[in-house]
């Protein structure tokens, strides 16, 4: 047993704070050594408490879990931020002394891993001796270089002591609306380095005796734009942590410290076994390969960056290989991923892996037993220097999600192929939406205060289709399965923007036998704002999901904004004005209503701060999910229903689905069965006519590769993948049968590539010990 306390061995001067007298570092080292040696967490080859007292074990679990869930529900009511209160962007997690999570509330559960990483950073860097870790201390962290997703997720971490010894930790996290980065909003764009990415706090001790230090309060509250949200968010986190600390103290008092201590470690091993059993039950052993991409369109004039070397269009690349073994263990390898870049879409290894775990909890392990066991049950390889494991301490992270969501959708497809093979058709999911657009900006609001906005309507995107039914429309986001778009009246309290429309976005869900869920769009008119700016953040030129087994990807993004609209006069005169949705962007109707307006309507879905004034318009378009199966196999009546329900633009019924519908006088569509059959037969003939044998197609593609016939952004993407992934390069060469000496280097493309040779990791700073969680 490696979790037994070693009271007799650790008497004397070097006595540490962990129960039994070890230092935190000694404790974690012992556990990790045993984990490596036995392949069981903390060497727990037997779960003594669970096996001998299953009822007691279950009671402990259910009481603690209920308490943690309850703390989140209660504490979130303290917050002022609609992100926290309406969208539930918070989470509380209980950890054992070594910083491994035992159980968690719902919410943004990616932070089960990121807060754990912060605790482990404190352990490895001997916070125990300086600044010291005592009962009733408060720590704050949001440092992306030690695992946080992006600076706007703020952690409060509180140690839990029993009779003077540390027995665990509780962490609380909220997504704040502004972190004082270069631009307003929590996930701003434009900055290309950490130094503009927002206020970052490295596991700082911010309070003692349950009281925050005054220097911390003064400093932190002026480092962000939205101070009131910041203050109440911090109180929310502290209140939740203290509720959970009290719960643990009560449980220990009643159930005994021995039982609690065993539980705190056995639960993790139990979680690891749970994952392994689920993998065995749900999947088929083998190798699954897939890929994801997303666009970083920085050459456009509406992306204002401070640095020349960042001013170019690039593509982020994420090939992946899942290997599932017969014993239910598995490995995820991201060989071939592209390099981190001069933008804010990079990710730390911890946020990347924890996020994958979040996805797994929505599909593979949706059980109450979700904790760090799943992390110990998964082997990751993230090559050093890639966008998900950067090797430079200057990198920016503020919208890491841009590619996280696009990269993971590939994994969902991989797993779904396995579910499909096992017959779990209901569990199949063609992938997740790109969770955007992010409406952000700031200035002076309707209350005449400095303000930042960050709409979270995109917590309700379309979901991917399953193998038995359509995806859900306007329903979820991969980073928080409990999605919600919130009430318009609440967003209007938080933003000086009135709604002129909220409508399901036709055609946004990918076509298929089962189509992806559709997203929706909100048309906002600036109202009561002063010195105001806004910007767009989402995918534009590329579909970042794919669709499965013939299903189409979801529609990609675009932007619509209108300035100098003349709406004030149009409203006064009673003339028609834009309402509702931009239903068919190829045939827009709004633009003509505002003849003098300056309209921005294009695929440039990422921009930086742009000036807006009252009566200007901004379209917030939330993406749909990808489809499953060939659209020609879709039940024709379902296509007609989609037309009547506003889920499909008319011309695509015939074009994509081969469905012919007649329009009645009242505007309702009805199915023309025979014409549909004929049209579908015709499409099948057209497909055959267009097709060529794979080998021939590959031949022509190979010629293009040899001639390096591709856009600079495509070439740059591959060149950076080749450099960081020699095996990927070898596979590429072999697949395309390229000559031995064929190569593609960034140097030959003629675009800037700062960082490709010269980079310096945070681990190279004095006194810093980074914690390594993955193979690299």
């Amino acid at each position, binding site marked *: 047993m490696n979790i037994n306390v070693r009271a007799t061995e650790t008497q004397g001067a070097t006595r540490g704070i962990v129960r039994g007298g070890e230092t935190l570092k000694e404790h974690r080292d012992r556990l990790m050594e045993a984990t490596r040696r036995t392949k069981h967490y903390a060497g727990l080859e037997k779960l003594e408490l669970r096996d001998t007292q299953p009822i007691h074990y279950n*009671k402990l679990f259910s009481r603690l879990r209920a308490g943690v869930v309850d703390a989140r529900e*209660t504490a979130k009511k303290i917050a002022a931020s*609609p992100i926290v209160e309406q969208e539930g962007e918070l989470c509380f997690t209980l950890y054992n002394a070594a910083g491994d999570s035992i159980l968690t509330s719902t919410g943004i559960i990616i932070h089960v891993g990121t807060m754990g990483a912060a605790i482990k950073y404190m352990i490895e860097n001997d916070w125990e001796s300086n600044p010291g870790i005592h009962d009733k201390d408060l720590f704050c962290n949001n440092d992306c270089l030690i695992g946080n997703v992006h600076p706007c997720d703020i952690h409060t971490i509180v140690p839990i002591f029993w009779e003077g010894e540390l027995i665990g930790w509780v962490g609380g996290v909220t997504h704040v609306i502004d972190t004082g980065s270069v631009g307003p909003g929590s996930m701003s764009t434009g900055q290309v380095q950490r130094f503009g990415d927002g206020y970052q706090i490295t596991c700082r001790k911010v309070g003692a005796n349950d009281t925050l230090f005054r220097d911390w309060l003064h400093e932190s509250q002026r480092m962000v734009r939205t101070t009131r949200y910041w203050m109440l968010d911090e109180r929310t986190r502290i209140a939740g942590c203290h509720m959970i600390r009290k719960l643990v103290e009560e449980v220990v008092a009643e159930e005994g410290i021995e039982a609690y201590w065993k539980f705190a470690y056995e639960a993790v091993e139990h979680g690891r076994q749970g994952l392994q059993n689920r993998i065995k039950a749900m999947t088929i052993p083998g190798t699954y390969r897939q890929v994801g991409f997303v666009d970083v369109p920085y050459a456009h004039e509406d992306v204002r960056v401070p640095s020349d070397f960042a001013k170019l269009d690039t593509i982020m690349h994420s090939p992946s290989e899942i290997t599932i073994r017969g014993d239910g263990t598995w490995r995820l390898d991201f060989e071939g991923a592209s390099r981190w870049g001069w933008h804010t879409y990079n990710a730390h290894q911890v946020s990347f892996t924890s996020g994958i775990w979040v996805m797994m909890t929505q599909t593979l392990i949706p059980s109450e037993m979700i904790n760090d066991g799943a992390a110990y049950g998964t082997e990751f390889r993230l090559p050093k220097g890639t966008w998900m494991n950067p090797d430079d301490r200057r990198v920016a992270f503020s919208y890491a999600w841009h590619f996280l969501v696009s990269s993971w959708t590939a994994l969902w497809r991989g797993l779904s192929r396995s579910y499909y093979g096992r017959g779990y058709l209901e569990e199949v999911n063609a992938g997740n939406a790109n969770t955007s657009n992010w409406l952000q900006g700031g200035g002076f609001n309707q209350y005449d205060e400095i303000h930042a906005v960050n709409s979270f309507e995109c917590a309700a995107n379309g*979901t991917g289709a399953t193998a038995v039914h359509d995806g859900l429309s306007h329903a979820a986001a991969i980073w928080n399965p409990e999605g919600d778009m919130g009430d318009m009246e609440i967003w209007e309290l938080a933003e000086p923007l009135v709604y002129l429309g909220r409508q399901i976005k036709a055609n946004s869900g990918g076509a298929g036998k089962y189509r992806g869920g559709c997203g929706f769009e909100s048309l906002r008119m600036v109202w009561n704002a002063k010195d105001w700016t806004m910007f767009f953040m989402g995918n534009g030129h590329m579909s970042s999901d794919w669709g499965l087994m013939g299903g189409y990807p979801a529609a990609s993004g675009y932007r619509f904004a209108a300035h100098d609209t003349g709406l004030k006069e149009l409203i006064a005169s009673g003339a028609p004005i834009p*309402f509702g949705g931009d239903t068919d962007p190829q045939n827009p109707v709004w633009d003509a209503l505002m003849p003098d307006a300056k309209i921005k309507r294009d695929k440039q879905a990422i921009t930086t701060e742009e000036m807006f004034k009252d009566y200007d318009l901004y379209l917030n378009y939330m993406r749909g999910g990808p489809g499953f199966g060939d659209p020609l196999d879709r039940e024709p009546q379902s296509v007609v229903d989609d037309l009547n329900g506003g889920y499909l633009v008319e011309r695509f019924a015939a074009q994509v689905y081969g469905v012919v519908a007649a329009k009645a006088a009242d505007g309702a569509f009805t199915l023309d069965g025979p014409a549909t059959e004929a049209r579908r037969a015709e499409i099948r003939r057209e497909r055959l006519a267009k097709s060529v044998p794979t080998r021939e197609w590959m031949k022509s593609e190979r010629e293009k590769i040899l001639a390096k016939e591709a856009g600079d952004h495509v070439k740059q993407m591959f060149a950076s993948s080749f450099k960081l992934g020699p095996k990927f390069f070898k596979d590429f060469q072999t697949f395309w049968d390229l000559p031995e000496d064929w190569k593609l280097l960034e140097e030959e493309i003629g675009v800037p590539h700062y960082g490709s040779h010269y980079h310096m990791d945070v681990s190279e700073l004095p006194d810093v010990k980074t914690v390594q969680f993955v193979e690299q």
Partner: protein
Amino acid sequence: MNVPVGILRNVQVLGIDAGGTMTDTFFVDQDGDFVVGKAQSTPQNEALGLIASSEDGLGSWGLSLADGLKHLQTGVYSGTAMLNRVVQRKGLKCGLIVNAGMEDFHRMGRAIQCYLGYAYEDRIHLNTHRYDPPLVPRNLTRGVAERTDMFGKVVIPLREETARAAARDLIAADVEGIVISLLHSYKNPAHERRVRDIVTEEIAKSGKAIPVFASADYYPVRKETHRTNTTILEGYAAEPSRQTLKKISDAFKEHGTKFDFRVMATHGGTISWKAKELARTIVSGPIGGVIGAKYLGEVLGYNNIACSDIGGTSFDVALITQGELTIKNDPDMARLVLSLPLVAMDSVGAGAGSFIRLDPYTKAIKLGPDSAGYRVGVCWKESGIETVTISDCHMVLGYLNPDNFLGGAVKLDRQRSVDAIKAQVADPLGLSVEDAAAGVIELLDSDLRDYLRSMISAKGYSPQSFVCFSYGGAGPVHTYGYTEGLGFEDVIVPAWAAGFSAFGCAAADFEYRYDKSLDINLAPDAPDDLSEKAAKTLQGAWDELTRNVLEEFKLNGYEADQVTLQPGYRMQYRGQLNDLEIESPLPSADTAEDWAKLVDAFNATYGRVYAASARSPELGYSVTGAIMRGSVPIQKPKIPKEPLEGETPPADAFLGTRKFYRKKRWVDAQLYRMESLRPGNRVAGPAIIESDATTFVVPDGFETFLDGHRLFHLKEV
């Protein structure tokens, strides 16, 4: 009970709990004696089941229906008909008028509605989420061009022709009701009311009779999804219920009653079936028990009560603190977010019929959330149930009498439970059958206990200052288990536990409650003149709500001087999104000093509910809502008061012994018949007190005392 034969009882109060399968009636006579009647529910015409249930109840007093009903002074109905109509989407065909451009918002719902009511595991399991169909389909939704902002200022003036066109379309579509809900109409209802008037004009022109429901006239509170759902319920579900209630009222009048029936409403009072806001009677049954507990508390002097009710499928808990119900303002029901004031009642999906399973991957013990419901468990052969339930554990452990379940109506087989638990739970966990069954019960009890504890601590209290009431069919089986060690001031099981909800209906106040959203914002250092202005604004809202309350009572023939008014308000720190409901310490507000008292009352509550460290007075204060409640006195059941007799139960109460397992040993439990125990009797555990509709378990280490009010007090000894 003690009335000599030949002298007719004077039956005064009737409470009704019309559930999905059974309709309970509860009659109270002039001495406070009561009787429970039961009959099968008759959903096609509820009046039939009610009359049958009344005949059953009155029959056991030897009264005919006519004799029983002729002195009746008041009657309260509660039932599930309206909720079922919503769940099954069998309401009226309604049209909806919203802002132009926002015609999709009702069918989109809030995404939260696609996982409302789910257990933790399914909330995170994306592929299980699903939306229910909207109450009003998209093709019966129309938009009108207008916009009003959050301050109530007009952004786009109403384009009346769009309202007229919308009205004509919906009238032509033959809708049976038209609901209007425009953004921020709670703040400035001018546009919405104008649309309402235009629609009314158009209906008149068409010669049709279609009721119109404007959200500002019904539920003027912020959050359009909540407000719109609730207003739609008025047209969709409440109007048909009004017809049902009228039929019931008429049927009773035919049998000699002279009063109008009242209905239990979500805010915990009863309202007339003629009330304007009838949607707030959507759930009424479970609230009855809470009201009953509150009434008992008032009569017997209990201020803080934890009400607990276990049925076949769920464990419901509600708290009464300082004699007041806790009200939730934006609750959800039937997977819809609503803006009704609802007696806060939390449910755990764990009851006597809950299934017990081991997770195949983790071997974790899972209770529910689904249940065998009325089919009990494996022990009832005819049920066809194969998965073990909590009731099977009860069988194994000797809690239940296999021959007296529902008065012997259902015969249970203990051996079936033993075999099933062995195979499904005991063997996989390596435990004996008894220990597995006892373990499951212990786990359930501990879940329920933690739940009770966390609810009480979330209110800022500890159980020591609460009396726990336990009722419902399965409540008294578990009372000892979920109260053990919490240190409640007292634990009470009413002898009429199984009919407690109907009793509560009979005990409810005749009370209307009106709410209004406000936006009063005050800086922490606001000068007195602003505080005074804030107090006056609040008073203005109270005045408006008072008029509404008095108008409702006037419909039922009560004058203003008969109505007792209680104002309340909802307050938060400026900028927050959640407020707390505070009962006003003052009857009216007028001055800066009054405002300060309102603020003090809020600060005191806030520190208790959250943490003292979460108080944020430096942000200033907002009043977000005004509340006015008005009530009139009505006839209520009297709580019986019988003289105490000796501590030893009469011989005829003793039924024998049964083997009973708890804490790793078998003991002989003494069996008693509940109805035969006398006030003053004391029963020490291990004992089981049986009645047709419930079983009260008193294990070793506990004893119970029956007081003169026919309440059992359970104590740890």
